[in-house]
């Protein structure tokens, strides 16, 4: 893994690195394995720590700990020695990490699309010539009533030292008691009767961001199983979730998520 360390500084945080390790071009998407990802992720940690950015290092460590837990779970011979609660908690963490990776990837691709728009628009320049001289005399004197002390006060306003930035803590978003299975059960109990509901309606009453992400993952799971359709009529419009499955056909693939 030594050869990776030199590239570490190009990764903007742990999600960036994980997405790179999992989705990089030269890897067959069907040959990805957790063991390999964990090894490579850890290989990068040295480089991150060497950058002496404590905050960044912590972010990488939190993700690395989750990955190592997941890998350790795999090395065990069976479920015999494992506390059920611990195992569930671990898989919740994995699902949350997955949801956050999906979200990060979504916005990364959206960012690239914005860049393409900007590139295309950048081939055209706006007219900025402004008022011709003969009209300038008519324009109101913008400095009417402005005094030297006003200018000085404006300078003091902009040059005042900024207040220290608030500390950003990522750890407060972790522990929420919700599982994928509960989220899927809730969807399955509501959607067939309602036919169609917005994602907003499906997440009503949920205040924690992570609960909403898990709910979103549950929607994705049902979508993958062909039980629902997802649509969005307009940009920024509500996500519309439509039930297209049969009532008895549920939960076939749920073992994917509860381990």
């Amino acid at each position: 893994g030594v050869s990776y360390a030199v590239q570490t500084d190009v990764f903007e945080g742990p999600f960036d690195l994980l997405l790179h390790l999992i989705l990089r071009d030269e890897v067959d998407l069907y040959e990805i394995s957790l063991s390999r990802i964990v090894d490579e992720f850890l290989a990068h940690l040295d480089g991150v720590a060497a950058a002496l950015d404590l905050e960044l290092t912590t972010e990488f460590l939190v993700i690395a700990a989750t990955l190592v837990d997941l890998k350790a779970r795999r090395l065990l011979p069976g479920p015999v020695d494992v506390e059920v609660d611990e195992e569930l908690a671990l898989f919740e963490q994995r699902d949350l990490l997955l949801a956050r990776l999906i979200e990060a990837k979504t916005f990364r691709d959206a960012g690239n699309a914005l860049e393409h728009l900007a590139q295309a628009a950048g081939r055209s320049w706006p007219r900025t010539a402004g008022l011709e001289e003969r009209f300038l005399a008519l324009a109101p004197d913008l400095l009417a009533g402005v005094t030297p002390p006003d200018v000085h006060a404006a300078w003091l306003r902009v040059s005042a030292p900024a207040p220290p930035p608030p500390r950003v803590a990522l750890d407060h978003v972790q522990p929420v008691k919700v599982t994928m299975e509960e989220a899927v059960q809730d969807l399955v109990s509501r959607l067939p009767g309602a036919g169609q509901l917005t994602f907003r309606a499906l997440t009503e009453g949920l205040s924690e961001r992570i609960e909403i992400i898990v709910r979103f993952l549950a929607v994705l799971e049902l979508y993958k199983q062909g039980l629902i359709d997802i649509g969005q009529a307009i940009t920024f419009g509500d996500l519309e979730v439509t039930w297209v499955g049969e009532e008895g056909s549920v939960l076939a693939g749920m073992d994917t998520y509860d381990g």
Partner: protein
Amino acid sequence: MASEAARAAEAILMVADEPVEPQLLAQLLEISPARVDELCEELAAAYQAEDRGFVLARVAGGWRFRSHPDLAPYVERFVLDGQPSRLSPAALETLAIVAYKQPVSRAQVAVIRGVNADAVVRTLCQRGYVEEVGRDPGPGQAILYGTSRLFLERLGVDSLADLPPLGDFVPGAEVVEALERGLGADDT
């Protein structure tokens, strides 16, 4: 014979240095905003039909004369400043988060990106793509950010509603499955 209103619109747009909203043109020309849009669309179509080297574009909520994109190779050589430098991938990702989730705080951006966003947001503010749009009513009163009019102009779109829907960028099944495998969720 061109209408007086169309000619007046051309004259005003020629001295404007930012997009002129139809409401303002309507007030100055004493016609309705809808009629302003019609007139400007007709003018834009005429310039296109005449194969002019400029366009009249509806961007960032108003009308503005711009050079025709075809002629970028010539204009590039003329314009001293050139186009603004490109944004880094981190800045683009952050810009997308602000564009689609606004109003949004730096902390919220950081949660999505998994990394502190202060420096990137500061850069985007200096570049003018992002601006403060309010304060979170909750404790701490975090500054909330949104995209600016300049952002719309740089992207060449009229309003946020003209951006591609975020749903277009949700990864496909193959990618989601790859991510699941990467986290060991495939065969437990």
